[in-house]
């Protein structure tokens, strides 16, 4: 199939359509609005459900309702909208109803701005709502990867009965890149055995996150925790660049990883054996592969478009074995390759054992 030029937000929307999304509910917010606008045109022409909700709160509860019927439902938003959706995310998690959500992150806190950011890392991986749960969080770095991850997201969501969140920053949503779109998938005909469809010829089903009895709620939580541990053990995904012989590792996710890759190349030209570790899953964090690389390292540099969020996961793995430095920009300021390279040079002098190639 030919490669076509697609804008990130619209590519995500078309990928969801081709992945078999039957219902989209959303609310306009920059920088993800093109996704909603695309769905407004595309879903009705395929006889599928599109609805602009009155708020992000309503949108996620509409997704919850549609997903209770066992259909592939999704929403998309950006940081302040995700904050509003947290209520629904918690209910979805508590009742293990699967759905997909896109967060095209912008600067915060508060109204912040509409520039690219990665400052929802904690929100998405640690506290997507009240109670004990984690969504599966995927962080594409290119428009093609966004398409590919979206295409597989409903299998993950339904397979694990979990919430899947695709986390991109405003850059990814807004930029255009060549994309090879996957083929249109036929819609699922069979509904899962928990779906609400009206109790015709079977006992009634209930979808609830309510367990008034303490022991019952603990039991439900322990089941959820066991599932999360299983996901953590099997779903860690990452990509590396020049990792094999690296003494110094740059860790970055999403579009920042692409900038970091330029810096790693430049550092290599300057004689520093640098490599790039790019988590594709933010939760579960790819701890095992990072741990496996650790013994060969002399230092780690974490670069993020936030005040230092993922760096905590990296420090959990690396501990005090080698220095872990952090370079962050906030508010929509994008890190440049030369400053990452300068930080790498600092790291090398700090660790005092510059590797000469």
């Amino acid at each position: 199939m030919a490669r076509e030029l697609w804008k990130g937000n619209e590519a995500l929307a078309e990928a969801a359509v081709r992945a078999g999304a039957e219902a989209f509910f959303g609310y306009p917010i920059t920088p993800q609005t093109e996704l909603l606008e695309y769905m407004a045109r595309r879903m009705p022409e395929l006889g599928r459900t599109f609805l602009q909700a009155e708020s992000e709160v309503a949108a996620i509860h509409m997704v919850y309702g549609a997903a209770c019927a066992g259909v592939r439902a999704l929403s998309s938003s950006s940081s302040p909208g995700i904050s509003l959706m947290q209520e629904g995310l918690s209910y979805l998690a508590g009742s293990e109803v699967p759905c997909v959500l896109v967060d095209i992150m912008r600067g915060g806190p508060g109204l912040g701005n509409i520039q690219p950011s990665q400052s929802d890392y904690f929100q998405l991986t640690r506290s997507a709502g009240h109670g004990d749960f984690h969504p599966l969080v995927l962080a594409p770095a290119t428009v093609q990867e966004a398409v590919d991850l979206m295409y597989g997201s409903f299998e993950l969501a339904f397979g694990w009965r979990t919430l899947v969140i695709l986390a991109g920053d405003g850059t990814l949503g807004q930029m255009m890149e060549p994309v090879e779109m996957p083929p249109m998938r036929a819609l699922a005909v069979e509904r899962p055995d928990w779906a609400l469809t009206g109790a015709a010829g079977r006992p009634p089903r209930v979808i609830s996150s309510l367990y008034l009895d303490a022991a019952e709620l603990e039991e439900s939580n322990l089941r959820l925790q066991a599932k999360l541990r299983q996901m953590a053990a099997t779903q860690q995904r990452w990509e590396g660049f020049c990792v094999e012989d690296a003494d110094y590792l740059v860790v970055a996710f999403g579009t920042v990883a692409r900038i970091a890759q330029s810096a790693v190349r430049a550092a290599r030209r300057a004689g520093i054996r640098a490599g790039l570790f790019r988590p594709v899953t933010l939760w579960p964090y790819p701890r095992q592969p990072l741990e496996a690389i650790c013994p060969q390292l002399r230092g780690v540099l974490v670069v993020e478009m936030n005040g230092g969020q993922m760096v905590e996961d990296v420090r959990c793995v690396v501990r005090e074995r080698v220095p872990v430095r952090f370079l962050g920009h906030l508010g929509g300021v994008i890190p440049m390759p030369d400053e990452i390279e300068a930080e790498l040079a600092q790291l090398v002098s700090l660790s005092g054992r510059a590797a000469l190639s």
Partner: protein
Amino acid sequence: METIYRRPALLADLPTHYCPGCGHGTVHRLVAETIEGLGIGSRTICVAPVGCAVLAYKYFVLDCCVAAHGRAPAMATGLKRVLPDRVVFTYQGDGDLASIGGNEILHAALRGEPITVIFVNNGVYGMTGGQMAPTTPLGMRTTSSPLGREPRQQGYPIQLPELLATLPGVAYAARRSTHSVAEIRRARQAIERAFTAQLRGLGLGIVELLGACPTNWQVSPGEALEFIQQVMLPVYPLGEFKVAAELGA
């Protein structure tokens, strides 16, 4: 012997958790009777609220889900949009629907979602122990309006069906009561109309039902029925405020 009354098959044979004299038992029965009478039980989905009726799913022998506080109309919208041939209803209290869920019910009504809304108004937050609701009559003492609801401090009670009746998306809007046999019979008819509006695809149907809350009104179950007539009815007149022409007179 001739059977003149039986428990509707769609109402589970269980003791409820409701307080003695609570209006929910009566309304549950009316809803179950109506769904059974219309023969739609095998294609009806209930969206339960947060509040005293949160356990409604235990009593209705139907597919059920439990919404977050106030979000039942949004959840029902999601269900109905992907299952247009099913019957979807929400069962909500006054704090759930008229306060925290005000935006969700307003916009579901504006969109004319063909869903049915069963709205039980007892003028207080029951589950949390009798706090002031948007529906609390002026002057009424509650645990969060201990000196009585005073409009300059706490605003005015909301008459929701009257408000929603002004919207073109609403096919049926009525208020009925559960304080007497005659009113219960009228309530049954109103609930049937609200479901019929959905079955005919006419738009949103809502019935507000005045229900007793003896526990939080701090009166006996018998006195609570008097309370409805003396305190609630002057604020909440009974009637049909919108009846789509296609529903007949």
